[in-house]
């Protein structure tokens, strides 16, 4: 027999019912992008990934097309190509979500070509073309919660979210003089998201007293009124095997451009400074959503989901979304042919909604153990673009700052290099995953990317 909870039962019930009945719509709106709350979700390119992404002041190979196109003039006369394939894994846990008892766990795993780039001299400068996946998630949640602490609720959720952002386009860079170079990459941007969520809640023998206090099968009140009193169990209203079922499918398609303007400066022997500005600008953004629900719970009905009837909703619309202007600057030091030290800082302009100005930083080092082998180490931040959550507000975006490290090992032959490496990040923060409530959930995220890449001098 369960002991009564010393909390407001109405609050528990209402929150739980919201969780069961409305979660779909809440998550669909909150999870609009693979990870829209961070800007450095994937480190592009093998060498930059090993250096924690601190590459804006290096940028002298095809990966420079993404970080700082001005750097590719330093690739010299060689025709270079590079590609990277990455296997991403992540796990996000939302603590004590349902009735303060169960964790929500979402995992993501997927293999994607992360980057391809090629450079070659053309005219007075260097031409390149590159493809970069800046954000990608294949997220799943398949959980059943058999024992939610409101009289035997059984809740099942199946969630799948496939969301990727692609950049592809040409670059051109010229050397202004011995010390300066300038470059421009004009990416075409595309983002495609497809998500489906299925939720079923069976409210077995859920009973309430006249004051909507939940009671168990034996008539015992499992939650007290806010004033501590109890109601006569004989007045209980019993709902046997009522249920909610909600299914939703959504698709987002966004297309635009993303110019990247870069500058590279070599102010002194063995020192370089790099800077770039970039911003994604959408030309079109289209959303399609289809929702179906049915409920037999008198207390769970709504205009969108009336009692005992299948309700269908279909939404199709064009929308606008803005992206921040991103400034990336850094410095690199080349003390010898064996050693490289580099750092970078990113500043992001807040643009819309609850976005907050934020920044990121990275440091990295590369060391040649021998002419054939080089190791790289990097550390980086991936700060949230959202403000800290307040316990007095509703509908807030999650806030979690991530910190990570990277490692890679390259083996060189005369004309090629093969690199393997890993990038790991983790963080703890807070989320408010249910709309309309002030309840805040603790959350934590772990991510691991394993990559293999190859580069060639042709």
């Amino acid at each position, binding site marked *: 027999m369960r002991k009564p909870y010393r909390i407001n039962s109405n609050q528990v019930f209402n929150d739980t019912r919201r969780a069961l009945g409305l979660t779909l719509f809440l998550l669909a709106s909150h999870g609009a992008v693979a990870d829209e709350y961070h800007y450095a979700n994937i480190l592009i390119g093998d060498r930059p990934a090993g250096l924690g992404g601190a590459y804006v002041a290096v940028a002298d190979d095809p990966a420079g097309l993404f970080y700082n196109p001005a750097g590719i003039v330093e690739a010299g006369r060689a025709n270079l*190509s590079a590609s990277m394939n990455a296997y991403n894994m992540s796990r996000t846990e939302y603590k004590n979500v349902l009735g303060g008892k169960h964790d929500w766990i979402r995992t993501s795993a997927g293999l994607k070509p992360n980057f*391809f780039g090629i450079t070659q001299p053309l005219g007075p400068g260097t031409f390149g073309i590159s493809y970069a996946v800046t954000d990608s998630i294949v997220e799943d949640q398949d959980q059943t919660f058999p024992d939610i602490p409101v009289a035997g609720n059984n809740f099942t959720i199946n969630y799948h979210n496939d969301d990727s952002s692609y950049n592809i386009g040409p670059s051109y860079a010229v050397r202004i003089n011995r*010390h300066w170079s300038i470059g421009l990459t004009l990416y075409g941007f595309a983002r495609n998201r497809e998500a489906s969520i299925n939720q079923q809640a069976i409210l077995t023998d859920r009973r309430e007293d006249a004051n909507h206090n939940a009671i168990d099968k034996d008539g015992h009140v499992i939650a007290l009124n806010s004033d501590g009193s109890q109601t006569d169990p004989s007045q209980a209203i019993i709902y046997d095997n009522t249920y909610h079922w909600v299914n939703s499918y959504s698709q987002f398609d966004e297309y635009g451009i993303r110019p990247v303007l870069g500058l590279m400066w070599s102010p002194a022997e063995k020192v370089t400074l790099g800077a770039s*500005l970039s911003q994604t600008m959408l030309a079109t953004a289209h959303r399609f959503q289809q929702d179906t629900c049915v409920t037999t719970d008198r207390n769970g009905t709504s205009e969108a989901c009336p009692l005992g009837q299948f309700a269908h909703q279909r939404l199709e619309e064009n929308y606008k979304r803005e992206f921040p202007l991103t400034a990336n600057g850094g410095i690199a030091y080349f003390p010898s042919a064996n050693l*490289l030290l580099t750092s970078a800082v990113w500043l992001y302009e807040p643009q819309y909604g609850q976005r907050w100005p934020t920044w990121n930083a990275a440091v990295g080092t590369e060391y040649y153990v021998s002419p054939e082998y*080089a190791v790289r180490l990097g550390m980086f931040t991936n700060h949230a673009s959202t403000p800290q959550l307040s316990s007095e507000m509703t509908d807030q975006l999650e806030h979690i700052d991530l910190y990570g490290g990277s490692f890679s090992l390259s083996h060189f032959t005369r*004309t*090629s290099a093969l690199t393997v490496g890993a990038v790991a990040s983790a963080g703890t923060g807070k989320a408010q995953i249910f709309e309309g409530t002030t309840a805040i959930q603790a959350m934590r995220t772990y991510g691991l990317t394993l990559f293999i890449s190859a580069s060639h001098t*042709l």
Partner: protein
Amino acid sequence: MDATRIAAGLALSALTCFTNVLAQDEPNGFRLRQHQVSTQNSSDEDVRAEIEFGQIIAARVLGRIALQHNNDWTTYVNLIGRTLTLHANRPELDFHFAVLDADFINAYSAPGGYVFITRGAIAAMQDESELAAVLAHEIAHITEKHIVKEHNIRARDTSALSTVSSIVGGAQDSARLAVMQAVDKAVDMLLTTGPKHEDELAADETALLLLANTGYDPFALQRLLSRVSEMDAEAQTGGKVTHPPTRERIDRLAKLAQDNRMEHMRNYQGKERFQTHAQALPN
């Protein structure tokens, strides 16, 4: 938003202001990483790649301009040319010299040791040292690997790791494409745009030293350039400007001769032998 824009703008402006204050002479050499430094020297495979690349270019040149079939002249230019190469620094190459059936004045060289001179160029010469001067200039392009460096011609890496890298990186087609692009560019450079300005001047200087070391008159190239510069431009190059301004070349050659104290050098010119062979060359 504005703060970020302004900060970025200020940062870029600040960088621009200090561009030349702290500038250094050779900013890029330090970027070479250990694996790049260790692959700067040529291997036997690289030489073979250079020769094969040069053969393709030579074939393209001969596809555009016919060979002059004259055994006497073929033997003569090869005799002079190979004598010069004895003093060049590429003993691993087997040089080949040929005369092209063209009225305009020009000469070409392809990597690996392939040198061509037009019948029109020979017609503009007055002695053997001038012929040697032109051949020496073209030999210098080869010994200094101007085209090889320009197009980064190296042997393909056939190691197991490289093969794996090719598969992972999907670079096999790119490699083939890059070679064909390099051939196209090299042929275009030879026949249309000409070598880079600095490469031409460097070849002149190497040719001057090569002539002197071989025993030919080191002023032969200056003489020939002066004479050619007074001729009709169309006759000079067939309408293709493939060399830097003649005046600049002559001045630099004169200075180099002076720096090397060659003013009083009176080496072999070979006027009589040249004239004997010249009579055998059809107009």
